[in-house]
């Protein structure tokens, strides 16, 4: 996996607060090769079925064409982004 990652997009997360009109406001800008491609938000409201998971609030460009799951961890989210941007 690490070998493949070397030739794949460089995905960087940058913390940001997000207004979702809900208690979910802990967010991450997802930047791939210097371009903003998505915004992740942590599901903190008690009503969520998967509280603590990461929801892809915004998808841009190529990511907008695919339906993302809710991610248990940020590592899973970045792996998913790399896979979708490959090729």
């Amino acid at each position, binding site marked *: 996996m690490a070998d493949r990652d070397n030739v794949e997009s460089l995905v960087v997360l940058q913390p940001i607060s997000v207004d*979702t*009109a*809900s208690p*979910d406001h802990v967010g991450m800008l997802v930047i791939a090769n210097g371009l903003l491609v998505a915004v992740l938000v942590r*599901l903190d*409201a008690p*009503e*969520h*079925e998967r509280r603590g998971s990461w*929801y892809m609030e915004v998808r841009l460009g190529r990511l907008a064409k*695919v*339906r993302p799951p*809710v991610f248990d961890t940020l590592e899973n989210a970045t792996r998913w982004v790399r896979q979708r941007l490959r090729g």
Partner: protein
Amino acid sequence: MQDTLIRKLESFEELTDADRTALRAFVPRVRQVPARTDLIQEGDTPGDVHLILNGYACRYKVLPDGQRQIMAFFVPGDFCDLNVFILDQMDHTLGTVSACQVVEIPRHAIEEITAHHPRVTRALMWCALVDEAVLREWLVNIGGRQADQRIAHLFCELLLRLEAVGRVTDNSFPFPFTQTDVADAVGLSDVQVSRTLRELRRLDLITLRHRVLTILDVEQLKAYCGFNPNYLHLRNARWSGRRQLPWLSSVRGD
């Protein structure tokens, strides 16, 4: 069971004794179907017409990526597929949401009765027209309303449809739908549904406990989503008056 069907049809058309006798004549099959079970699947050859006596069902399709889109919810008294038996092949799937009591009416029974009882035929056409009107409204819902309004609109619709068949008590009704069911019906993600439910609760418009939905303020909820019940063509909606116009009776030959 026939009485339920007759009540349903009489909400659209006045039936004669002969019509009612004919409707009571055929012997329906009543099936108990567990929750989350398909009644008929896309690709199957439709045979019987399904009528929901108890419980909730839905009409859906699954996209190649696994995403499900729900196109209709069925509540007690609803036909799932009134005219679809004419088709060679189902282009969608019908499945239960909760455990259901489902009546299967053989297609020949429908064909026979509609051939000889014009009022029954007209009542069945009413049912089909209302189904289409609801589908149109769902299209408007998905294409034109914001997330929170979509869900509020669905709740208003369910309230009125269930009220019409006597399934609402103190503005409360059984709500076996998951967040995913709602999401798949209104074109949102589970997370958006969860947030909207939270917002509707915060505004004291609804409560949702133990799978029972209570509309706390019906008028406010309707105002919130701009709900207009005209498309349901219910007797107690504003259309009922127009149906009593003298010219309509004269056309009927009553």
